[in-house]
């Protein structure tokens, strides 16, 4: 079906038959505003993989092998990936839901801990029949997490306390509080381990596995939660009001919506989802509360929500992606011996790129603008183009030397500096920043310096390259400044 057909289909039957949500979805799928963020998320992932590859190169790992094992690991164990994704879906939803109401729940981790602690207590201290027992535990866990989110919600609504700060502070409070509970009043009697922990939950409370050793039925709970959150946001009065408050608090208040009630509720619901994530992990995975059990699923929830654009379905996809990344990471660690924390680096970079979507616009615009410039005014643009290429080559070459074995730390530092200045020079020249030529000169001087240091201390490993680079660089610089002076004379550039 083509875009035209579908939009026609949307327009015509309006008056005759009511639109189904599927038609609306179909129409939405053909809009640019829908695809742009999706595309940008994908580009962010690619960009962060590239930067991570550079970091791996610098650390002496083989990025090609690493990525091969990573992607292989992501695909071969879907159950393992979903196992990692299960809590991430819930914490991601938690952050996304609060965000829809204009609130940043950065302390989902604390709500996770409160929820898991409550569920663990009910899990071992109360005897209930199977099915009912885990459900009770989950409900209590959700309530505990919900209350822990409701408090900052109330403070935000009625006292104006900024939720970014309060949720974060309460998150640490919760971790310390549950630690205390696990260390003193509720500690498993006769326990010998160093890490404080609670007694194991009763078998009746455990959530069984779906398949294999990892994936438990919590995944079903998580997916149902996605449906529920999407429904609440789009189909209920509550969701409508929350979104209205999130977009424009004043307008919502004017329209008779109580923003305070909605904000408190949103953070409460958000906390409940995080609490559910914690409870699910205890019942399905850990089997008891252990101090500091969470590998940061609350914090990762932010990543998931950010990549998923705070959209319930986007969150689901992002969580599965990050889950797969985790599972691939373990495989990569085992085969390519790249530390599992590399996944954290990738994750952090993705968030950074997603945080600034305009990098994408800028790249496209600058690149396009540059091409036009070169075409229209080759005399002026070509030296700049040379500087641009020079920046890239410098960066790549320097990074290459960084990874060479047997170089001193200071030398690596120097080359690292060259690489960074090269990248900066590239960026500035691309955006036609008026002081870009000066950065270019700095880059040339750095090459000169590395060459000198090399010949003095290292016996000229890279001396010839450095010499060639600095000579070429200075030639480009001369051309650059000649062009620049011409442009200043014409009044098109500021001195």
């Amino acid at each position, binding site marked *: 079906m083509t875009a035209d057909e579908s939009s026609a289909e949307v327009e015509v039957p309006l008056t005759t038959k009511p639109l189904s949500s599927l038609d609306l979805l179909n129409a939405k799928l053909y809009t640019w505003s829908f695809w742009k963020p999706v595309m940008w998320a994908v580009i962010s992932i690619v960009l962060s993989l590239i930067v991570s590859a550079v970091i791996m190169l610098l650390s002496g790992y083989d990025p090609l092998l690493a990525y091969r094992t990573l992607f292989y690991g992501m695909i071969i164990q879907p159950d393992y990936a979903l196992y990692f994704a299960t809590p991430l879906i819930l914490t991601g939803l938690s952050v996304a839901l609060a965000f829809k109401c204009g609130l940043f729940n950065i302390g989902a981790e604390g709500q996770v801990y409160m929820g898991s602690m409550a569920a663990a207590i009910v899990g071992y201290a109360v005897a209930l029949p199977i099915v009912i027992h885990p459900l009770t535990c989950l409900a209590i866990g959700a309530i505990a997490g919900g209350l822990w989110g409701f408090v900052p919600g109330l403070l935000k609504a009625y006292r104006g306390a900024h939720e970014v700060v309060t949720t974060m502070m309460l998150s640490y409070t919760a971790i310390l509080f549950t630690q205390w509970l696990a260390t003193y009043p509720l500690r498993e009697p006769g326990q010998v381990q160093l890490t404080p922990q609670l007694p194991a939950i009763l078998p009746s409370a455990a959530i069984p596995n779906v398949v294999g050793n990892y994936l438990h039925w919590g995944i079903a709970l998580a997916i149902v939660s996605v449906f529920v959150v999407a429904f609440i946001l789009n189909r209920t009065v509550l969701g409508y009001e929350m*979104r209205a408050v999130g977009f424009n608090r*004043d*307008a919502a208040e004017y329209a008779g919506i109580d923003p305070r009630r909605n904000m408190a509720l949103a953070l409460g619901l958000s906390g409940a989802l995080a609490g559910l994530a914690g409870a699910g992990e205890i019942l399905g995975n850990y089997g008891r509360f252990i101090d500091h059990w969470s590998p940061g699923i609350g914090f990762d929830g932010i990543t998931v929500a950010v990549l998923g654009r705070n959209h319930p379905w986007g969150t689901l996809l992002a969580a599965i992606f990050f889950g797969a990344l985790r599972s691939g990471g373990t495989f990569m660690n085992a085969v390519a011996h790249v530390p599992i924390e590399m996944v954290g680096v990738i994750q952090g970079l993705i968030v950074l790129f997603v945080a600034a979507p305009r990098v994408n616009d800028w790249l496209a615009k600058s690149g396009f603008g540059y091409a036009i410039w070169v075409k229209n005014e080759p005399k002026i643009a070509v030296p700049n183009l040379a500087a641009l290429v020079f920046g890239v080559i410098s960066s790549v070459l320097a990074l290459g030397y960084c990874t060479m074995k047997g170089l001193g730390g200071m030398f690596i530092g120097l080359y690292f500096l060259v690489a960074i200045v090269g990248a900066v020079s590239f960026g500035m020249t691309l955006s036609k920043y008026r002081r870009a030529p000066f950065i270019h000169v700095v880059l040339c001087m750095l090459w000169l310096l590395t060459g000198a240091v090399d010949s003095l201390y290292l016996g000229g490993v890279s001396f010839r390259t450095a010499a060639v680079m600095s000579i070429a660089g200075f030639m480009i610089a001369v051309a650059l400044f000649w062009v620049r002076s011409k442009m200043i004379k014409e009044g098109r550039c500021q001195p």
Partner: protein
Amino acid sequence: MAESSVSLDTTSRNAVELIGICKTFPGGVHANKNITLRIREGEVHGLLGENGAGKTTLMNILYGLLTKDAGRIIIKGEEVELQSPQDAIVRGVGMVHQHFKLIPPLTVAENVVLGLEPILVSTKMESHLGGWSVKSVGVLSQILPVDLSAAEKRIVAIAEENGMNIDPKSKVMDLSVGQQQRVEVIKTLYRAADILILDEPTSVLTPQEVDELFVTLSKFKEQGKTIVLITHKLREPMILCDRISVLRDGELVGTVNREDTSPEQLARMMVGRSVSFTVEKPPKEPGSKVLSVTDLVVYNAQGLVAVKGVSFDVHEGEILGIAGVEGNGQTELVEGIVGLRKPKNGQVLVNGKDLTGKSPRKVRNAGVSHIPEDRHKKGLVLPFTIQENLVLGRHADVPFATGPRRMLLNLQESRRVSKDLVQTYSIKVSDVSSSAQTLSGGNQQKVVVARELAAQPKLLIAAQPTRGLDVGATEFIHQVLVGMRNAGLGVLLVSAELDEIVNLSDRIAVMFGGKIVAIRKPSDTTVEELGLLMAGHEVAGGSDER
């Protein structure tokens, strides 16, 4: 090669030349369409136009705050490419913005020197070293101590020289509006500006303050400074200006000498036809009381009394207009009635029902609709779709909410109603599921009006309903308001546009200093009398129609 071709005779006479300036905003608004304007040295030049005609945009471009899409700027004979206000400031251009560019928690002196801070070392050293200046240390000067006491001395000197009185050590947030404006003027003088742009300088001032300002401005003129006065009022340029340029819809209509023109001609140029704003309005006998406000006292966001015991009634089938210079408590009065601000004292009755201090939802449910004065801030949730905006406020009521306890949204119903409203009010949209951001200002206001009237209210409160709208949309809104009155609604119209009030209202209440100083019938009063009342003058005689 593009040689700047400025003929010599124009350079000697023109302080500023703007040639072929074009500006389109990212939203697609053509704010300036090929405007060519020459401002002579030493003249007071009026820049007249309605709200949204592009005056401020043009001057912001001259001040370097906005970038132009096309055109040339020549300041004092030198063609310039303004990257930032700094480039304009060094060429002697200063601007006093309508919304003051002052930072309340900082002192007057700190506000004035911002961006041009005197360095203690340099002021001390310069006397010893002669030619040594701040420039020679470059960026380093940023972390050398500021010489605030020298700046304070200079500020006092500048103020005294121009007959102003200001304490440079006081914080801006403690100053009155008039004093703040003085700080703004001093800011430009501190930068040795000789081309002064003033954007709607009188809109927030009391009459005394306006007089003082005019005295100051005429002093500047004697000193040979060039002044550009942006305004949408006809009276001011006729008093002060040598020449007046009129903008309409982003285009320059023409430039005239004050001696050769009249307010009527200017008004014609401004609106594109002779001003006869009178809307067809059949006489109508007002019915029973819809709204009754007694002794209402409301505080503003800063905790000061903004409404000081206001009483009035609105009847069925009448428009009560509240006239007044902005900032005299009208905003707080409306917010106090509709429940956005809790009154400290007094009573609000709608159809005999006490709604004092009730929540906005309760007030809405009692049959009160409200067109807010700021549609972007209050009237619309811009990222929402048009459909979602059209049910805002009624979303929780049948038929838009269904299911148990009306918890679910009825999307089909709201879509159907939205389609109807879009048709009825001829709102230009591609689809009701596109976001409200994509609409033009006029269509956005239509969305607000459509929604508020669709609730079938008994009382309509319209605050500045035509602000920022073009003539066509304004006329549409006026017709709607009168139509509602004819249909028997009570309408409370708050507007800063006196013409609008006079033309639409059945009774006019004038607000000044948080009080209603008079209530008049349009037939019993004159624009002059209303103007005096708005300015806080006691008017002898005249009977109140309470």
